[in-house]
């Protein structure tokens, strides 16, 4: 079993998957407790628009998708702050709009664009060193924001109490949306846009079932994500299954098991 990890592509896949589990486990509880579970899925679809634009312009798709998705995330946040439109509606509008843009972009590039569709399903086993570096850079950026964890969590618990204590809640909304957008774009390359949201939502939702504290929820989400990546890669290798999907199925398995065991204990 261990010799699996001596294969370089499996090593890269494991490292990239673990970094993703760490990042998504860290941001997931904020996304879930703020009622933005749909955001990950929406931003992944927005990223598809960016990928298509990159292909059309003949640029590296990821480098176009990053600013494109970040702009959509800020746009969603802007609509939520400025209008009476609910968060899920704002996400719904922006992701349909970006997806439509993507389809138009792809149609303008009158060649066969199979590459765009690799982004639908991702390819964790074909992680390029550049993708790995991108996820490590995002991990470093996240480490820099660790001092903000307390005020983000405070505003997640009660936005009004945090605002009364002079936490810059609006600025933090934009900052969190921006960082989640980066996580989504990087994760999309690994697990595909169809499954990206799972990384943000399922481990956090699983951990919520037993966590008594918000910190416990974050730690739990990271552990569930890590376990799912590790076991998912092994199983997918052993049974020749698609790896991203296997990881997500394991996350869902842990969630279901937790729901059966914990039944609203706290």
């Amino acid at each position, binding site marked *: 079993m261990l010799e699996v990890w001596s294969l370089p592509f499996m090593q890269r896949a494991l490292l990239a998957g673990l970094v993703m589990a760490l990042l998504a486990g860290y941001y997931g509880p904020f996304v879930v407790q703020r009622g933005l579970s749909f955001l990950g899925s929406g931003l992944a679809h927005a990223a598809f628009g960016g990928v298509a634009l990159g292909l059309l312009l003949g640029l590296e798709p990821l480098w176009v998708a990053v600013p494109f998705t970040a702009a959509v995330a800020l746009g969603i946040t802007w609509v939520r702050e400025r209008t009476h439109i609910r968060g899920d509606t704002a996400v719904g509008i922006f992701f349909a709009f970006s997806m439509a843009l993507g389809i138009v972009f792809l149609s303008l590039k009158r060649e066969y664009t199979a590459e765009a569709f690799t982004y639908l399903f991702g390819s964790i086993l074909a992680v390029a060193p550049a993708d790995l570096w991108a996820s490590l850079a995002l991990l470093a950026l996240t480490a820099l924001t660790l001092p903000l964890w*307390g005020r983000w969590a405070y505003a997640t*618990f009660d936005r009004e109490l945090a605002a009364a204590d002079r936490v810059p809640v609006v600025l933090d909304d934009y900052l969190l949306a921006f960082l989640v957008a980066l996580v989504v774009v990087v994760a999309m390359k690994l697990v595909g846009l169809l499954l990206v949201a799972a990384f943000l939502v399922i481990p956090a939702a699983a951990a919520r079932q037993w966590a008594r504290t*918000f910190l416990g929820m974050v730690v739990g989400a990271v552990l569930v994500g890590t376990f799912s990546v590790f076991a998912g890669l092994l199983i997918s290798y052993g049974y020749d299954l698609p790896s991203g999907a296997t990881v997500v199925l394991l996350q869902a398995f842990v969630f279901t098991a937790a729901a059966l065991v914990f039944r609203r204990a706290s």
Partner: protein
Amino acid sequence: MNAAPQKGSPAVEVEHLTVRFGDHLALEDVNLTVPAGAFVAIVGPNGAGKSTLLKVLLGLVPPSSGRVRILGRPTDGVDPRRIGYVPQFKTLDRTFPALAEELVASGLRRAWPGRLTPAERARVRAALERVGAGQLIGRPVGRFSGGELQRVYLARAFVRRPQLVMLDEPATGIDVLGEADMYRLLEDYQRETGATLLMITHDWEAAYHHATHVIVLNRRLIGFGPPERALSERCLREAFGHVGHAHGFAMVLEGERRA
């Protein structure tokens, strides 16, 4: 620890305060000065702007026009640690995983705690014990009753030793015994620290018996002063459009005044 209030400066000064939300006029030309150490009850019908007034004082809603000073400073210049805020408990997100000690510690840190230091835990424990809720310290808040939540939110407000405490309908959803306890806790805290209390309430009788000042609000300031003056039949009729069941109340006040 906290800066002392500027000598002689009132706790709250409001001059020509008007708040507009689009076309809706929430508060219109409100003027009042709350002396330091007062216990103020804010009464008025639904939609009278009571919560809006509190939110302006907390710096959450900007005035459309007019001037507001808290503890001698503009709202954005006052140290938030000098203000304790007790929100309505129904705003609690019960899905958020939180222990009572974390909720109270958030009042100390002005951030959500990951882990409490021993010194923080000692202060949190003392604050909870003071409101008779020491046994709740390590329990998840999501399962608390209204009475338990109210105590934990009071502890959260008191733990930073504020000079001004603002409470939004703190007695809603708790029983009469819990209510009596709450007034005792508020009055004890006030006696000990000389703090000013501002409380939105629907209970005129409680306002009459516990407050030193009453604000009667219905978009405009209808009455402000000692309860026996502010809660007059004329003010209540003007604020609520009718006296209704309050007629009896006004009569009682009338009787007490004569006695």
